């Protein structure tokens, strides 16, 4: 057992490899319990995209002991809120409950970690549900379609090429055996981390973990091929035509992350750069593009420094009335150029740092978020401490470092651009029908 008193975190590992991390927070009589598996869409290969997410759905569909949906009923009867989410690099299941109910969570999470049924009849229905989810999230949302095409163009051989929810064709051709193989391969105590945060006693949590997860057999977890993204040798552009009202642009440059950077400071400098452009209402995008030149109706920057492989530093936005996508792209590139040529001034940098320092305090208002941060970092192979030390690493970033990463990484040879070209929706008048009561 390890204790990190300055963070109020306790760590423990069972002999079968399961890692348990507890963050005590006694403000309210509640706790959150999260089970994180090291598997997500980036583990998948062509033809079987979306299998991690479909399996996540099937985890609610019964085990040798529980019928379909019974897990959810038990959690509900215990006053719990539960759900699950699938990302590129993790799949996580969680329950938020009153503090005395942790046992209920552990008992059934342990059960579905090894004894999932994967009933073919249930699968037939659930795959339909996932296709409906894909229609809702992607097919009928022009900006999501744009993002998907952007992503597929930006990443060639990296597993980040495919959408997390999977391609529709892969969903249509998925069968329950695909899931069974996937489940056997990744759902094991030595491929999982449990995070519990809230009004709990760490010793009691570890005892419960021993009791419910201790006897689970570990698995031989497969080695993954590295699938390092090929070097990009020049700008790529794609166009997406879809029913929409507004044009939309996405741009992305290949950038290193904490996991891949040669220089430890670079990802933090990139993160500050993102905040200089889009961290709050006083940032340059709001000030210069939305308010100043008014070229953008909305514009944003995004960067995930804690990804386990090469990431994209992205920009996205919608031009304002009378301005074109081209105008917006030029304006974004001009903001990048300014960062490459001129140091940011101290007041700007101080504002970014003030927001980070305050943000660390605000984070503590949510036990869920604190658990999430720990689980995410651990599962992508980084230490959860990085989250705790984040503010210090940001505070150390200098204006020169920001200029350096802007010049080194935000240049057109690794740029991918996707443009949404709106196709007329048509203005059908709604038909109104009055039915007499019958």
């Amino acid at each position, binding site marked *: 057992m390890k204790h990190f008193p300055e963070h109020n975190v306790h760590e423990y590992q069972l002999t079968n490899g399961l890692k348990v991390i507890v963050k005590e927070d006694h403000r309210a009589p509640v706790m959150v319990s999260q089970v994180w598996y090291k598997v997500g869409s980036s583990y998948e290969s062509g033809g079987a995209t979306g299998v991690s997410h479909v399996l996540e759905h099937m985890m609610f569909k019964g085990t040798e002991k529980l019928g379909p949906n019974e897990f959810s009923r038990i959690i509900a009867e215990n006053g719990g809120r539960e759900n699950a989410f699938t990302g590129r690099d993790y799949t996580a299941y969680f329950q938020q409950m009153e503090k005395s109910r942790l046992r209920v969570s552990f008992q059934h999470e342990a059960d579905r970690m090894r004894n999932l049924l994967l009933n073919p009849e249930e699968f037939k229905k659930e795959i339909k549900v*996932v296709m409906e989810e894909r229609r809702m999230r992607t097919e009928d949302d022009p900006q999501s379609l744009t993002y998907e095409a952007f992503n597929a163009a930006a990443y060639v051989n990296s597993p980040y090429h495919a959408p997390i929810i999977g391609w529709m064709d892969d969903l249509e051709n998925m069968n329950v055996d695909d899931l069974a193989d996937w489940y056997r391969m990744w759902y094991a105590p030595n491929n999982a981390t449990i995070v519990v945060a809230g009004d709990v006693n760490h010793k009691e949590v570890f005892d419960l973990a021993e009791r419910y997860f201790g006897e689970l057999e570990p698995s031989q977890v497969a080695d993954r091929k590295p699938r390092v993204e090929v070097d990009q040798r020049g700008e790529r552009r794609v166009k997406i035509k879809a029913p929409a009202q*507004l044009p939309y642009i996405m741009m992305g440059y290949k950038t290193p992350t904490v996991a891949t950077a040669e220089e430890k400071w670079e990802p933090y400098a990139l993160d500050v750069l993102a905040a200089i452009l889009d961290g709050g209402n006083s940032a340059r995008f709001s000030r210069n593009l939305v308010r100043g030149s008014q070229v953008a109706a909305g514009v944003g920057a995004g960067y995930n420094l804690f990804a386990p492989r090469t990431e994209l530093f992205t920009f996205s936005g919608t031009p304002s009335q009378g301005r074109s996508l081209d105008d917006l792209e030029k304006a974004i590139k001009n903001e990048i150029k300014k960062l490459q040529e001129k140091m940011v001034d101290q007041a700007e940098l101080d504002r970014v740092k*003030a927001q980070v320092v305050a943000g660390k305090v605000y984070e503590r208002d949510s036990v869920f978020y604190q658990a999430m941060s720990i689980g995410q970092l651990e599962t992508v192979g980084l230490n959860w401490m990085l989250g705790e030390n984040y503010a210090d690493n940001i505070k150390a970033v200098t204006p020169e470092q920001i200029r350096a990463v802007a010049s080194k990484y935000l240049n057109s040879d690794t740029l991918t651009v996707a443009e949404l070209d709106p196709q007329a929706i048509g203005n059908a008048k709604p038909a109104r*029908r009055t039915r007499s009561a019958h």
Partner: protein
Amino acid sequence: MNKLVTTALFSVLCVATSVVFATPNIQHWKTDNGARVYFVQAAELPLVDVRVVFDAGAARDGDMPGIALMTNGMMSEGAGGWDADNIAERFDSVGAQFSNSSHRDMSVFNLRTLSEKEWMGTAVKTFATILSKPTFPADAFERERKRLLISLEQNKESPESISGEKLFENLYRGHPYASIPEGTEQSVKALKRTDLMAYYRRYMVGNNAIVAIVGAMDRKSAEALAKTIVGELEPGKAAEPLPEVKDRQQAEEVVVDFPSTQSHISIALPGMKRSDPDEFALYVGNHILGGSGLVSILSDEIREKRGLSYSSYSYFAPMRVQGPFIMGLQTRNDQAQEALKVMRQTLSEFINNGPSARQLESAKKNIVGGYALRMDSNKKIIDQVASIGFYGLELDYLDTYIARVQAVSVDQIKDAFMRRVNPENMLTVIVGAQTPAQAAN
């Protein structure tokens, strides 16, 4: 293979759920200019949340749809001697988070700041100036108007947005709730800066405001804080009472042809207001019907048994006067009629038969057992407190809540649904691609 002792499933759960924990202690007073203040001391974290709510949402738009939202948004675009850049810098430089939003009932202003004296001082002063000295700069007004017009365009590409709009428009025809908070292209283009200023003067006043404060300070400091934030407002008058919503007399279907792969389907009618005598019967009943996620009857029929939809739900949105009762889902176009039929059937059966005793017991366990989760952070506490303050609920609303849930019976739910939800008089809204066969029936 691991051997767990199989516990009989429900033996574990038969323990009566009596959860006892401290609900937030709400302190209440009025400022000299009439604002009602609701304060909860939360000493654990060095931060303070403030929310100011005016009774100045879209329900007050009158013949100028969009004016409430525009007025709310414009207040942070210039105040005192500061322009939008200065205001943003002041908040960002002390790590404060400011946000504003406008709904049908409420015009909302939020501030989250560290409790550190100097940083908080800057944040609070900026916040107070936005509320009491907005300048509505002409150039910012034109810019924000354009941005609102763009977002109106954006709404037209989302079947979900269209569906919500059509629902309110038709459910509340002739009532202030019919107004779409974002307004229409026509109404937004017609707005004048002076209209916004007049609206501000009428509605952003002490007697029409509530202030919720949750954070690391004592009562005395909270009193001083409230005074700083809203003390400069004119006392003014509270907004007029809204007209009651009439019950529907007949069924109606609104179908919008839209080139999406799914149809978004809702059935709705005017539901309940805050402090409704049937509040708890309807709330607990709906929890069972469609308000409890994957374990609700509706989700079971639509998703679990048939795989028709990813998300199916029903809810009452209690408002100042009768907010809507809505059941909704989205499904592949060619399944729209089947899904609609199942949804209507599910509702009718629930109204006719009511829930079973077992279902009611499960719902109570869920609501009572999870009650602590509704106030386990300052953010959630301020949500609760602001709502209690704005709607004038009893100060012990949170303390009596569990007992009132526990008191609901099967018969009360049946009776309340029978009286309040008539499946013969529902409004149906369908947004999706219409096949000729569908359009013809």
